């Protein structure tokens, strides 16, 4: 009986551990312009879009990423989950890109509504919003591994 209880406890711990990443993923959603016919995007691909290592969708249309303000909660979560780096580290990356004349960072807008509006009106745009944001008019993309 003791062994069974231990096994069940271990199973519950494992289930909780597996649940945690999904819970973190649900704290933000990836959205794209409705003209982009895509259902799932890998984290690595999204990261490449946002640091402009990849600048075109498969169909050839330009990718236009949009960031949220550096002090926003959803940006912090997005940065850790997708880039695997803090917002500070990503800002340092962009400092180097800017001052070496290599690239400019994505525009930054304040709040979910502004991100949705940007993505809705900009062909090829991709952004992220909090899980509870109203995403009418844009396509929500599932986050793959």
């Amino acid at each position, binding site marked *: 009986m003791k062994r069974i209880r231990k096994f069940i406890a271990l199973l519950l711990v494992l289930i909780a551990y597996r649940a945690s990443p999904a819970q973190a993923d649900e704290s933000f959603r990836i959205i794209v312009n409705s003209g982009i016919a895509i259902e799932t995007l890998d984290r690595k691909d999204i990261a490449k879009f946002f640091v402009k290592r990849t600048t075109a969708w498969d169909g050839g249309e330009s990718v236009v990423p949009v960031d949220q*303000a550096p002090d926003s909660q959803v940006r912090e979560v997005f940065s850790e989950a997708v880039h695997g780096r803090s917002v500070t580290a990503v800002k*340092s990356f962009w400092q180097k890109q800017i001052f070496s004349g290599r690239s400019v960072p994505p525009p930054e807008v304040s709040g979910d509504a502004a991100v949705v509006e940007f993505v809705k009106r900009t062909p090829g745009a991709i952004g992220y919003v909090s899980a509870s944001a109203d995403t009418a008019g844009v396509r929500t993309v599932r986050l793959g591994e």
Partner: protein
Amino acid sequence: MKDSSLRVMRGWVHALVILGALWCATDPGAAWAGEKFQLHGYGSWSYRRTANAGYIFDNGTHEGNYTNVSATLNVAAQPTENLLAVIQANWQLQEARTLDTVLLPLPPGPFTLPGQYGAIPIGTVTTTPKSTVELDYAFAEWAFSDAIRFRAGQVKLPFGLYTEIWDVGTLRPFLTLPKSIYGGQAIVAEAYQGGGFTGNFDLGDWGLLYDLYGGQVTSEFELLPTWIVDSTLSDVLGGRVVLITPTEGLSFGFSGYFGLRSDSALLFLERGSVGFHLDYSGESFLARFEVVFSKVPSFINAITGYGELAYMIDEHIQVAARVDFYKGEGKIALIKASTPETTDEHADYAVGLNYWFSPNFVIKTGYHYVRGNRFSVPTAFATNFVTPYAGLPFDDSNHLFEAGAQFSF
């Protein structure tokens, strides 16, 4: 008012101006980042003091030098998805040193006229603040694809780790760059005038960045701290390859350039540099290493390099260490005979302690123990190449204390 008091007051005025700019710079909204047009910038101020009386090192003097200020504005426009245009200008305020002279009648001789007067050095040096404005770069880039982008104009020279971010203090752990590679040897330069290709290839978990360029390179050659000549190298071909590894923050690369013609006052001929670099920039830990071999045929060969480490103890405090070395082999007999051997050598052992208010604003302090006289030279010798050296050795050790602030937006 005494010169020293004026210098101190001037230093405080500079510091207050910089602090005022810093107050604005710490506002995350200070940089204007629109969709198609962006304005950014950075600045720096430092106080630098050496231990050796009468010796200069890296703009540090025995009396203490407050006049080390620079500010840069960067304007970038992306009117279409394929077109990027960038302009960057830099303003610097530093001490200029001139030898004090007195007019005296020259002794009669084959090259003097009767009654002719000449300026005779009296062994002291006057320092005055000198302001310069330079165009760092101005170029446009057309992106055919991620792999092929063409850029033309005055472009940042892609070599090693720091040429493209030369004066950006918030992207490095020490106030100044290692002298070995970036200290006015004409080993590297800030920019080239010409055209080139750049791009990146996605290799799965790896990435490859490349640069290939041609044109003309202008760099400073610091014969002495007060004798800096611009050396323009033409018919240049250069490139850089950087591999981005699957380990987040780790990359390494190879750089090189070679030019065929030079029109400097010292009549350098063809010259070139090749180098290897490694960079690990993690969340808390940073490690960088570079080594460069440079050759100016019939003039000098040099092997130079540095290694630096930095660690964030918490989100604000950073400790840093650096070892920097230079070993030159001069080939001109006259210069070798008129300078001590130690002027071909340099080693700098440095430690630093920094406080980061944010990634855009940092206060830095550092201590350097310097060996060799490639960059640490007597002030009077630096201003009058011949007078103070009469076969006597220089003091080949020096110490530098530095403190300052750097910001970006």
